């Protein structure tokens, strides 16, 4: 048969399963429902931050326009440029000193703008001079087409052979007379994309004529963006959802800002799941502790009660009751039922014992009755032994053993012939040997009854003597069990105070004297003392009460 699981294991299993089910449900809810909410919230957040950035970017562009308008009023630059053109037109030759002046002033101004290049463009669109880090991409003399470049101030995108530039410019004028334009260009390259990205905290993709020229997002995302031809909204790029916002659509150039909604939601969801994991860990721990405590609360008293029962069973003490644990009504009911069971078993056993005792007593009485002289002998020895045992403060159990053992002490005489038992006169040695066999015989008979195992020593050894001259083994002193010594003294006392076919009964005081005389040799001295104490008025043995107690009247009056 399979061993059933421990209560603790079962409780823990149930608890863990429940917690796991709850957590699974919560996890599903979070990943399905909360993810959507997070996504919506993140999209809103992105829109807000993009609006803020757009406003800032617009402001920045306005500032740039204003700055360019201011720079375009540089008197020396304008004067030199106008003089240069006027002279070239008038005389056909140009003053390189004036060109150098313009170039020098432009270079100075270039250091004051964050742009990659600052250029002076002639009215016919040719680059007069350029300065700044990207000036090499604006070679002098090259024609550059700036959409909207004829406006007093303008912003657009210019595509040069060296790359596309976002330009902000202002015309150089005297009244309504334009002599050229001052143009600040920002290269639409990785640096600019990175700068925009840093400011907007979004990804940036720059395309010119549909080709990606700069990006701060993975290549595949940028390519998908171009392929999608999207100009805004939510677009799926490289299997992720992106919020796309057009930042600049100017000429052939497009600047997109894009943010992965999934990535943002992922962070928030991860945070939520992390919190959930903490809660899960905590609840599992609490549930484990709780169920452990509960299981212990239930199993410990059960273990205690079953341990007690095991102890009781091992010691065969069924006379005491189990205490109620008070931990649970069910366990107390079980304990009470057990106690009731023990009590009823006790009662049944007592009944059985009584029946046994009755039969044994009847057997003993029948035995005694074989010889009129020994009638009631077993009962008297039993009563005497019990009295002595009480004087010696023996435990009740041993008293009971004493009572029954004494009753049966001469059971072996069943195998001794009546002829010898009733022989009126001294026994021959042979006859006496036969008599001496009765303890061993009695023991052999009683060995058949396990119930009487503890009484065996009394039956077998009640003729041993402290001086070792007893039979059947000749044991000495303390080697002889106390019960056997007690019965030995009681037997002798009763035998002496009883009449025999060959002699009259002696008085109890005479018997006492006899016992005391052989105390320590034939009789155990402690037992003799006990007998004396058990019969306080031993000197007045004729007293009726004692006589009755001893059951002597049967003998004395017959």
């Amino acid at each position, binding site marked *: 048969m399979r061993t059933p699981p421990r209560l603790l294991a079962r409780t823990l299993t149930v608890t863990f399963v429940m917690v796991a089910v709850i957590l699974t449900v919560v996890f599903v809810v979070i990943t399905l429902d909360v993810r959507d909410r997070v996504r919506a919230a993140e999209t809103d957040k992105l829109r807000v931050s993009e609006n803020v950035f757009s406003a800032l970017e617009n402001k920045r562009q306005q500032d740039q326009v204003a700055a360019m308008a201011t720079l375009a009023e540089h008197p*020396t630059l304008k*004067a030199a440029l106008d003089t240069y053109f*006027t*002279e070239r037109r*008038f005389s056909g030759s140009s003053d390189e000193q004036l060109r150098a002046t313009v170039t020098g002033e432009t270079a100075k101004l270039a250091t004051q703008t964050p742009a990659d290049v600052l250029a002076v463009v002639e009215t016919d669109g040719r680059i007069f001079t350029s300065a700044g880090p990207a000036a090499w991409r604006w070679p002098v003399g090259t024609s550059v087409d700036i959409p909207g470049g004829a*406006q007093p101030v303008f912003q657009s995108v210019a595509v040069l052979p060296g790359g596309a530039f976002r330009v902000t410019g202002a015309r150089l004028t005297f009244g309504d007379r*334009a002599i050229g334009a001052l143009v600040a260009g920002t290269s639409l390259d990785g640096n600019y994309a990175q700068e925009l990205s840093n400011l907007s905290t979004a990804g940036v993709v720059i395309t010119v004529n549909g080709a990606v020229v700069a990006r701060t997002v993975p290549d595949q995302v940028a390519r998908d963006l171009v392929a999608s031809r999207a100009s805004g909204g939510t677009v799926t790029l490289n299997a992720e959802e992106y919020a796309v916002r057009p930042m600049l659509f100017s000429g052939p150039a497009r600047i997109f800002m894009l943010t992965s909604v999934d990535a943002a939601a992922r962070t928030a969801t991860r945070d939520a799941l992390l919190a959930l994991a903490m809660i899960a860990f905590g609840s599992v721990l609490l549930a484990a502790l709780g169920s452990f405590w509960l299981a212990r609360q239930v199993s410990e008293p059960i273990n205690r009660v079953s341990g007690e029962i095991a102890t009781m069973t091992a010691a065969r003490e069924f006379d005491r009751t189990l205490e109620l644990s008070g931990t649970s009504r069910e366990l107390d009911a079980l304990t009470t039922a057990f106690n009731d069971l023990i009590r009823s078993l006790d009662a049944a056993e007592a009944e059985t014992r009584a029946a046994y005792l009755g039969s044994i007593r009847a057997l003993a009485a029948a035995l005694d009755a074989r010889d009129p002289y020994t009638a009631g002998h077993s009962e008297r020895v039993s009563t005497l032994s019990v009295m002595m045992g009480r004087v010696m403060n023996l435990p009740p159990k041993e008293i009971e053993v004493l009572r029954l053992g004494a009753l049966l002490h001469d059971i072996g005489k069943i195998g001794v012939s009546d002829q010898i038992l009733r022989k009126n006169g001294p026994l021959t040695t042979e006859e006496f040997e036969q008599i001496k066999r009765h303890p061993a015989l009695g023991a052999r008979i009683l060995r058949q009854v396990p119930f009487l195992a503890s009484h065996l020593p009394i039956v077998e050894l009640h003729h041993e003597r402290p001086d070792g001259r007893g039979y059947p083994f000749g044991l000495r002193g303390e080697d002889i069990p106390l019960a056997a010594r007690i019965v030995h003294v009681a037997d002798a006392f009763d035998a002496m105070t009883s009449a025999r076919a060959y002699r009259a009964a002696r008085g109890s005081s005479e018997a006492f004297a006899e016992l005391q005389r052989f105390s320590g040799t034939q009789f155990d001295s402690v037992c003799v003392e006990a007998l004396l104490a058990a019969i306080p008025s031993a000197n007045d043995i004729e007293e009726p009460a004692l006589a009755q107690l001893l059951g002597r009247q049967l003998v004395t009056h017959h």
Partner: protein
Amino acid sequence: MSIGARNSVLFAAAVLGLMATAGTHPAAQERGSVRGRVSIGIPVTAKRATSTYSRNVPTVTLAPESELRHVVVYLKDAPRTAAPAMHAEIRQRNENFVPRVVAVTVGSTVDFPNDDPIYHNVFSLSRTKTFDLGRFPKGKSRGERFDKPGVVKVFCQIHSHMSATVMVFDHPWFTVPDEGGTFELPNVPAGTHQITAWHERLGDTTMELRVEPGRSDTIDFVLPVPAQP
């Protein structure tokens, strides 16, 4: 007074002038005068220089009349000829140079009086004459003498939108048209000449004209309208 009538008067005056000089100067016989009109607007074919009659076709005027004051008509290939020094004036008024264009002979002086209640500055970076008159307040005037022929751009360092042009010639054959665009170059040596109408902004138009001695030839200029922004 109609343009035709005025032209007749001018023509009469020119004839009188020619007659007056004819007797005193032997070379006078070989001189003629050039008259004409400058307009700004849609380009039309210039009248043939040899045309014997004047054709006055009203033209669409696309620029304010005052723009015509910014035109200088001159003989482009004129030989170096001494001419008396002149005295011209460019005022600074309402943050503008008035007039914006003056034409003078070599050795002339141009004064720059300040009429504005604010400081102005007058400077030039031109090869012909580089100067800086510094800053001066209302009521003050500073002058500059121009000893070399050429074009001189004048600016104000304080007000970067202000500009003026001084054209310095080493001959007397130049003029600024009146507000109607009419001009006359008298005593032009007979022969074929390149005549230029120069405008500070609209560029210049040069035409060839054969000047007959003792005659007044007519040439009309139409300066192109600048590309509208």
